[in-house]
């Protein structure tokens, strides 16, 4: 008999990670100091588009503490090295080389032109001032639409166009649905809108930092990155270094939100410089540098047409996007809009769909993944236009959604994009959300305020979203021309003392893998939570991985952990039978013990680990270890969903928006740790709400980022945000054995349209049908003035 312990999975375990983080005993990359280490500082262009006539580094070279100053001519004379883009979305995609340092021409304000190597960071910084660069202005390309017109100046002359790629999905052509032009032609109602996804800064709290040590047999790179494994392989490929001579470590990493998915010019530069000077080097950026040089997010123009019958049945959706890539292509930048392509149909049974995205180069900081990556853009557009359609039809916006969404009994459901949603229950999440929100009561209050002409009007915003998570089935990535697979790796080491090391290829930077993975393994092996250590982010220990993004870690990486644990148990079983002198068929494994059925004879997995370590008496042919590894390649995505309801109060005299209440009910499938899930939702909500209300990276007509510091760019503080009411429904995913779906991006994806819908809803009776994001008081006030003037 074995005692059945309460399962760890599902418990609100306090996090293991916290112990070091709340006491300041953390290993951030910038904390690393090595003997003889030198410091890098990068001279960056203040010009958005200019020829480099001359770079005079002679004065800088004589500055105190300066060891060397390098330009592109010194680091890469042949112009061969380019930071890679791993996602050529079309065969004819235009891909400019993204150099470590600009040689002849700068293409965005913030691009590096020289690097100083000095004994201290301060001395390196001082020497930057002594570098003299002569520039000759070139016409600046900033407007995405203008950039596509004939005869417009080019960001990259050698490409002959500012168009990066045109990517199209048409359900009629793909055979997954009807022809959208027919649907629009035959429709009883059509609504067309243009939405703008402003440019955002990921604004992870830890600035990027790289340390390179070239002094041992392996060259070691520490980087504040989300993707140590990809960085290792890509660094080898890009610089022509033997991959087995590289080790990449992502130590504690202070947030990413997609902003640390990159193989950076700065990382490559640090490696090349370290090799040149033969000493360890460190580069840590300032925040202002980060705002200019780290990739931005979003920045799309969305032209959307929806067609429907008078009864509210949607018959088609047509999407034309223009997406700003900035001056170069990031690691996955061109593919970000494509991740959204499959999500415009959202939770709905749209029968016809066409998506076309034109990616454009401009003289701005490049764009790439930012929390949600493509999916927030899609969700925003469809949830906004559903509200507009509801108004056109005179329907309640929730009723319109319900008419079109996939009913819970209709799963699995293959969408107009060809994705198969395995499960979901939109009715349950919506019912719960409406109940928590007091939907009907707030609608009544809204009417009362309208009737009495209250200065402060009330608006209700709905967002019923889904997202594709668990990136990704490798065959799907292959069909989309992505340059890697979507699997994840895990390994488990059973130590002689009964402790367990879990190695995961998923590289956490705040998500809480150490806690959640421990819970999973504790249940699988019956080993105490405290006896499990989860190791990640070091290519020397977690040797394989695809890292962390796209809400993939648990659905893909967690599954790999389960598979590895199952292999450990399978390996232990013959040893248990041998130790207990019974047949394997008589054994059952539960609570960490192998027991002989119907007896009290048992051995624990810890006993077996020791026995195997000693290896004195093992079954014939058994290798003396229980360790196991597994790689999981998902067969399908997972599809979290939920219903978010936002009530805003809008002061019609000042344009000020206050969030009065926010309710979200998310269905992220089975939950390993509700505390972590709730935290992810909170953080996601704030980032999405902040897109709606506060954030935008603004460039002036010269291409200068005008709000490139934390003093100017509005990262919300505690005082800017309300508390949220969060709840969950639980429909297990059927696409992985844990039944999980992913939660990292849900809040961000759902909340932006909920807030904007609420603002427009508050002002609809004043003639307002759109407020461009961020919905600042000025913009809201102007919308009211313009609406009233009609």
């Amino acid at each position, binding site marked *: 008999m074995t005692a059945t312990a309460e399962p760890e999975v599902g418990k609100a375990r306090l996090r293991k990670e916290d112990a070091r983080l709340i006491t300041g005993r953390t290993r951030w990359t910038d904390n690393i100091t090595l003997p003889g280490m030198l410091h890098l500082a990068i001279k960056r262009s203040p010009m958005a588009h200019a020829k480099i006539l001359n770079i005079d580094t002679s004065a800088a070279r004589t500055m105190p503490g300066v060891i060397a100053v390098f330009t592109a001519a010194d680091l890469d004379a042949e112009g061969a090295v380019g930071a890679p883009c791993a996602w050529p979305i079309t065969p004819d995609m235009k891909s400019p080389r993204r150099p470590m340092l600009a040689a002849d021409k700068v293409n965005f304000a913030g691009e590096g032109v020289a690097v100083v190597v000095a004994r201290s960071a301060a001395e390196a910084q001082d020497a930057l001032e002594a570098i003299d660069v002569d520039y000759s202005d070139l016409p600046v390309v900033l407007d995405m639409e203008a950039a596509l017109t004939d005869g417009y100046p080019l960001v990259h002359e050698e490409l002959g166009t500012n168009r990066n790629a045109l990517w199209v999905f048409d359900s009629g052509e793909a055979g997954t649905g009807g022809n959208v032009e027919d649907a629009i032609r035959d429709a009883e109602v059509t609504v067309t809108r243009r939405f703008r996804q402003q440019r955002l800064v990921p604004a992870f709290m830890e600035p990027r930092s790289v340390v390179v040590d070239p002094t041992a047999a392996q060259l070691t790179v520490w980087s504040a990155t989300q993707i140590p494994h990809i960085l290792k392989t890509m660094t080898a490929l890009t610089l022509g270094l033997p991959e087995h001579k590289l080790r990449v470590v992502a130590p504690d990493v202070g947030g990413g939100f997609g902003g640390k998915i990159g193989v950076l010019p700065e990382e490559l530069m640090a490696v090349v410089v370290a090799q040149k000077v033969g000493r360890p080097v460190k580069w840590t950026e300032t*925040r202002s540098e980060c705002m200019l040089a780290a990739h931005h997010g979003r920045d799309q123009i969305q032209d959307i047409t929806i067609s429907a019958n008078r009864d509210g049945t949607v018959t088609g959706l047509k999407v034309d996007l223009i997406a700003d890539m900035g001056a170069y292509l990031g690691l996955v930048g061109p593919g970000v809009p494509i991740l959204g392509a499959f999500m415009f149909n959202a939770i709905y049974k749209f029968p016809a769909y066409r998506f076309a995205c034109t990616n454009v180069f401009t003289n701005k900081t490049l764009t790439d993944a930012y929390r949600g990556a493509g999916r927030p853009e899609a969700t925003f557009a469809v949830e906004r236009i559903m509200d507009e359609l509801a108004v056109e039809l005179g329907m309640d916006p929730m009723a319109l959604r319900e008419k079109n969404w996939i009913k819970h009994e209709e799963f699995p459901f293959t969408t107009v994009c060809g994705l198969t949603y395995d499960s979901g229950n939109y009715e349950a999440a919506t019912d719960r959300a409406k109940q928590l929100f007091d939907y009907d009561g707030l609608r009544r209050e809204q009417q009362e305020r309208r009737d009495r002409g209250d200065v402060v009007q009330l608006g209700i915003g709905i967002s019923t979203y889904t997202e594709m998570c668990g990136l990704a089935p490798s065959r799907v990535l292959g069909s989309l021309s992505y340059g890697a697979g979507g699997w994840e790796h895990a390994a488990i080491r059973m130590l002689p003392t009964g402790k367990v090391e879990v190695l995961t290829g998923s590289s956490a930077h705040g998500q809480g893998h150490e806690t959640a993975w421990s819970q999973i393994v504790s249940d699988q092996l019956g080993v105490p939570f405290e006896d499990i250590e989860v190791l990640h982010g070091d290519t020397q220990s977690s040797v394989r991985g695809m890292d962390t993004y796209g809400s993939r870690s648990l659905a893909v990486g967690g599954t790999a952990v389960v598979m590895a644990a199952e292999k450990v148990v399978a390996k232990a079983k013959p040893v248990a039978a041998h130790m207990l002198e019974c047949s394997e068929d008589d054994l059952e494994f539960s609570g960490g013990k192998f027991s002989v059925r119907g007896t009290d004879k048992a051995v624990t997995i810890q006993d077996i680990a020791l026995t195997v370590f000693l290896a004195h008496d093992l079954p014939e042919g058994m290798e003396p270890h229980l360790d196991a590894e597994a790689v999981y390649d998902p067969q399908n995505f997972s599809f979290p969903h939920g219903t978010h309801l936002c009530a805003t109060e809008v002061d019609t005299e000042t344009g000020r928006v206050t969030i009065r209440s926010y309710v979200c009910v998310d269905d992220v499938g089975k939950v390993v740790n509700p505390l*972590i899930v709730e935290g992810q939702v909170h953080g996601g909500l704030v980032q999405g709400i902040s897109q709606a209300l506060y954030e935008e990276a603004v460039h002036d007509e010269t291409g200068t980022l005008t709000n490139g510091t934390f003093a100017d760019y509005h990262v919300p503080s505690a005082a800017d945000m309300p508390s949220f009411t969060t709840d969950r429904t639980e429909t297990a995913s059927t696409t992985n054995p844990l039944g999980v779906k992913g939660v990292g991006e849900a809040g961000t994806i759902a909340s932006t349209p909920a807030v904007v819908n609420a603002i427009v809803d508050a002002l609809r009776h004043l003639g307002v049908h759109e407020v461009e994001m961020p919905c600042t008081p000025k913009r809201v006030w102007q919308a009211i003035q313009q609406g009233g003037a009609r």
Partner: protein
Amino acid sequence: MRINVNVDGTTYTDDVEPRMLLVQYLRERLGKTGTVVGCDTSNCGACTVHLDGHSVKSCSVLAVQADGAEVTTIEGLERDGQLHPVQQAFHDNHALQCGFCTPGMIMQAIDLLADNPDPDEQAVRHGLEGNLCRCTGYQNIVRAVRDAAHHMRPGAGPSAEQVSDTEVTRAPSHTAGN
């Protein structure tokens, strides 16, 4: 310039450049890397420490200004292996994710509680306005600070951290609560 400064209970004498920031001194000279730098405009608060019992953004203080002063960093909060109640509350309430803002957030929260031992939600939100977090959405941070308030007794603020006096009085907070 020569400075004498007590950091987390140890007195250091150092020659520093006049332009050296306190945070650089802490990190680069003393290896107190628990205190971090998140911006260059003193907006993020990640570098918050206590200088003579009051929270300061250590990126906005010169090392020479700390001459003769007592500095407490996140690394100096534990007493006898016991977490400070605010540290404990951040853990208990899942008030951190990546943890980069956490040292500054905790130091500011302690200062806030010294001024207002029982703040309501809005008082916490406004008291932490100068400290940015990108992960948590603040809700659990607010909860943690209010939870800590309930576990702390009056007088448990930064003044309780003073260690240079001969009599080292333990903050009541360290024996309060759990």
